[in-house]
């Protein structure tokens, strides 16, 4: 056989293989998208593994930007030293007054709690961790922190900065973890408007200003209102500062978070001992959760049956609720 013929066949075979490989890889990419939707636990494990392995490289790559930022910050601080000093003196005076008031209120609170047999919230444990990366982009808002299960980081822990709530720990690796920010499109935080006690959900939308959703009709919300966690759903304890209402119009209420993502260098992880909506998703826990849910459903069904059989004061049986009618 002539060498040119062999070479031609080889080229053709290679082209066919390349075309097939392209189609196979495109199919694989779509399969990954489906897998990401279907098996979140597997994907989460894969993400954790990769982030864990890449943590030292990301940390090393982040260092030059951190150093430059630090120098810029120092120069800015030097320029503003005098003004900053005056402001701090003023703040200090104000804080001293607040301290006196806080001490008085603390004593009064302890006394009143003693009188009413108040059950306090569980003790929290916290530690501070350096932020090593920002998984930026338009489709996800999160930061990588330089600690994992080695440092007792647990999934579902609240991440706070000096200003307020930052987010929650979503993935825990051995040496690194991922914190999903409250501005992420998947983030939902039960909150309350501090002065009116109006409940709502803070929904991230991948912008700097998340929205308030499920606000009750007729609720009074105005710009400048403080938003704090409500403590519902067991995700976060009540009272953690989240942000202030920045704008209110007919359809959208936007909140300016207290945390500043661009200046986030250190976060405080707090374990309030709340299992919350992010409780462990291992097989055993899921089975236990399913069992508990089934038992509760059975109990509810039995109770409703009992109620419907029990006659009213006039002797007619109680009407069924639409939910009862819909129950299979």
């Amino acid at each position, binding site marked *: 056989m002539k060498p040119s013929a062999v070479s031609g066949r080889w080229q053709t075979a290679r082209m066919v293989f*390349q075309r097939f490989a392209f189609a196979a890889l495109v199919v694989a990419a779509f399969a990954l998208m489906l897998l990401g939707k279907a098996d979140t636990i597997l994907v989460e494990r894969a993400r954790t593994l*990769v982030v864990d392995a890449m943590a030292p490289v990301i940390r090393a790559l982040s260092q030059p930007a951190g150093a430059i930022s630090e120098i810029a910050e120092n120069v800015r601080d030097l320029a503003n030293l005098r003004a900053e000093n005056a402001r701090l003196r003023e703040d200090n005076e104000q804080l001293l007054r607040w301290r006196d008031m806080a001490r008085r209120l603390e004593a009064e609170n302890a006394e009143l709690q003693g009188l009413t047999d108040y059950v306090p919230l569980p003790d929290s444990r916290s530690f501070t961790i350096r932020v090593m990366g920002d998984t*930026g982009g338009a489709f996800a808002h999160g930061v990588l922190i330089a600690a994992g299960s080695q440092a007792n980081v647990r999934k579902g822990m609240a991440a706070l900065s000096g200003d307020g709530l930052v987010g929650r720990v979503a993935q825990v690796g051995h040496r690194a973890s991922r914190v999903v920010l409250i501005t992420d499109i998947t983030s939902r935080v039960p909150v309350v408007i501090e002065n009116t006690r109006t409940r709502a959900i803070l929904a991230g939308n991948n912008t700097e200003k998340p929205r308030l959703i499920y606000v009750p009709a007729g609720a009074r919300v105005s710009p400048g209102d403080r938003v704090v966690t409500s403590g519902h759903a067991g995700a976060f304890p009540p009272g953690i500062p989240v942000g202030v209402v920045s704008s209110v119009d007919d359809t959208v209420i936007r909140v300016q978070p207290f945390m500043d993502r661009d200046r986030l260098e250190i976060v405080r992880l707090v374990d309030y001992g709340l299992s919350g909506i992010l409780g462990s998703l291992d097989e055993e826990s899921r089975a236990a959760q399913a069992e508990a849910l089934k038992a509760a459903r059975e109990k509810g069904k039995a109770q409703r049956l009992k109620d419907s059989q029990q006659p009213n004061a006039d002797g007619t049986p109680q009407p069924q609720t639409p939910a009862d009618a819909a129950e299979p």
Partner: protein
Amino acid sequence: MIIEKTFRQKCDLAIRQTLPFLTAFIAALLMATQTHVPRLNSMMPMLTLGVVFFWAVHRPLLFGMGSAFVIGLMQDLVTGVPLGLGTLILLLTRAGVTPQARLFLGKPLVFHWWGFILVALAAAVASWILAAMILGVIAPISQVLMSALLGVVVFPVTYGICILLERLLVEEP
């Protein structure tokens, strides 16, 4: 006459040949670093796309579709975006740009830049649509377009670094 390569020469060659993959790998990790620049982290420039574009034009044999797939997958896993999104975009970029390579080869940077503007825009729109389909919610398109625009702005730097690395590939050890 056949000249047998020494072990050192073989290692050197292997390292040089993985340079395209390594640069794309570092670009993908750079997308996950913290910049401390206000608002930049929510619209990181499309660095990886620029690198993949360059190697798809200049060294398609050293940066195959498998490499684009692996880099995209790793970027998706590290940055936390929906899995498969970046993978598909980089894969399509590699597959779409290489057949047009002769339009860019030997031409000045401006030609590459124009080409990349089109690729970045297409990638931004495609990823926005795909993300909306996967997440079930619509992310603000302005941030995706800004990310593409910043990628276009930093492209000359990406191009310059890749050109320097490409020279290493052609130099004899």
